[in-house]
């Protein structure tokens, strides 16, 4: 295996920025190794063409590259048939595709079971179905940030048609037991969707072992280009879904009054696909496979345990962090506050108290402060407002790790936090 230091050397942006950028916003998006950038350049320099319908050689070569990419990514997630992967823009689109498409067969009173730790992308698309009387339920979390399994079981009813759950929370870092949840869903006769946006990039994920019916993930969060993502579905289930977007490529025949559709995956790839994106993501998958997903997971486990150790050592009085402290259930995500800002109940009006309560530092100020020490973290609701509210705060700051991060980055994070704490004291 390569050393983690060597790995950092593969990332032109990180080399360029040097000490001026400690990039800890990997749950939002990741940097790209030169292998991926090169694959994009190579594509536009040697293979670029529209795919599928062309009879000339260039188009057939492009088609070949496109389908080989599908196959490669299919193998990466343990899918035995590449036709089970449809290319989409990102996780969000994959989940919308499912919600729109499954929506045709969902009726008043049917229930969809989510968890309170879902990303907005796994909430809002389902909310659209509320119009037709479909009900959303949210399984709660325990105090330690793990999923409340008892609540999950209670909310899984005979009316639950679909269970859609994140594999890893982008805020708490909680890794859910996907295989167990899939089994519960299936025993209940429900379809099981896994949001893999934060798991596929960071740990081995095998769709067949987990037995999920559908899996969604984004290329840009796993070293791949922007604008490409994947929807995996067991073939018969995927092919059985009604189409989502209509147009070129997804049809079999079009008449003025009706159309017939192609089989999956084409059925779900309306319009000219992002061939560049597929090829770039395939290059990213090669890069990750070369390191080994077990190694990626170990590295991040090391960083997050080191983080929690540092947290205890520094013991910043107003620092509070969230998420499980059992490393088996914890991804490389560290979400925290320097003093908590609780949400104001707008209806009750504002309480007339002084702003400076216990010298709390707002997450925005934390992020700006860290940025001035060259540490890039995210602050806000992390597209998980229901969870943020559940934690009874208005916002949090979040550091999230990837393969090019090191223990030194964690050291710098805590040194900078100390500095901010002093500034606001």
């Amino acid at each position: 295996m390569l050393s983690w230091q060597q790995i950092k050397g593969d990332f032109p942006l990180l080399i360029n920025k040097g000490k001026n950028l400690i990039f800890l916003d990997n749950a939002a998006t990741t940097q790209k190794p030169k292998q991926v950038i090169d694959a994009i350049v190579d594509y536009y320099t040697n293979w670029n063409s529209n795919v599928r319908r062309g009879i000339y050689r260039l188009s057939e070569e492009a088609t070949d590259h496109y389908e080989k990419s599908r196959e490669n990514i299919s193998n990466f997630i343990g899918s035995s048939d590449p036709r089970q992967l449809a290319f989409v823009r990102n996780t969000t689109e994959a989940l919308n595709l499912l919600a729109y498409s499954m929506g045709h067969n969902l009726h008043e009173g049917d229930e969809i079971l989510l968890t309170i730790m879902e990303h907005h992308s796994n909430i809002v698309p389902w909310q659209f179905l509320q119009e037709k009387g479909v009900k959303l339920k949210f399984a709660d979390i325990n105090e330690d940030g793990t999923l409340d399994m008892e609540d999950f079981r209670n909310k899984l009813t005979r009316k639950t048609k679909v269970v859609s759950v994140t594999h890893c929370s982008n805020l708490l870092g909680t890794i859910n037991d996907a295989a167990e949840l899939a089994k519960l869903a299936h025993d209940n006769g429900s379809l099981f969707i896994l949001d893999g946006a934060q798991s596929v990039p960071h740990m081995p994920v095998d769709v067949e072992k987990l037995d999920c019916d559908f899996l969604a993930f984004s290329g840009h969060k796993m070293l791949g280009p922007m604008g490409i993502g994947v929807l995996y579905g067991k073939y018969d289930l995927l092919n059985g879904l009604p189409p989502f977007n209509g147009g070129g490529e997804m049809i079999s025949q079009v008449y003025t009054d009706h159309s017939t559709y192609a089989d999956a995956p084409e059925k779900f790839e309306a319009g000219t696909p992002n061939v560049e994106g597929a090829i770039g993501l395939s290059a990213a998958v090669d890069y990750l496979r070369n390191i080994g997903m077990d190694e990626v997971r170990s590295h991040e486990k090391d960083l997050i345990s080191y983080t929690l150790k540092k947290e205890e050592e520094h013991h910043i009085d107003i620092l509070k962090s969230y998420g499980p402290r059992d490393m088996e259930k914890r991804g490389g995500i560290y979400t925290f506050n320097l003093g908590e800002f609780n949400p104001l109940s707008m209806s009750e009006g504002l309480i007339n108290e002084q702003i400076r309560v216990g010298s709390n530092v707002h997450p925005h100020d934390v992020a700006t402060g860290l940025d001035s020490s060259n540490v890039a973290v995210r602050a806000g609701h992390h597209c998980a407002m229901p969870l943020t509210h559940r934690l009874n705060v208005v916002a949090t700051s979040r550091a999230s790790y990837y393969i090019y991060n090191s223990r030194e980055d964690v050291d710098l994070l805590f040194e900078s936090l100390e500095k901010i704490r002093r500034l606001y004291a």
Partner: protein
Amino acid sequence: MTDEEISTEILLDHYRNPHNYGQIEDANEKLIEFNPVCGDTVQITIRIENDVVTDIKFIGRGCSVSQGSASMLTDKVKGMNIGEIKKINQEDILNMLGLKLGPSREKCALLSLNALHKCISNHEKKTHGGN
């Protein structure tokens, strides 16, 4: 200290010990402005007599930029007339703070100005609308 550091110090001073903090009893306009993304909140109560701001207070919760700028803005506009206040723009607020803010923090900085402008506009509707 650099200019930037001095400006930061001033802002933090306002944040720690905000001016005009509280509510006016006999306010003729009252408005809450809220940024759902970060939870920053500012409530403004204002007393306007003959188109002049005779008193203004705020209460709020949020980051140093949203709260500090509310403190500075309320200082600035006390005694001003409506016409002058309506002319205050984004630029003026950023100059007042003297900090280089990125686009996301600019929203924080402008929260109290937005609230103030809405108060003024509500007041004008009432007085010029004749009710």
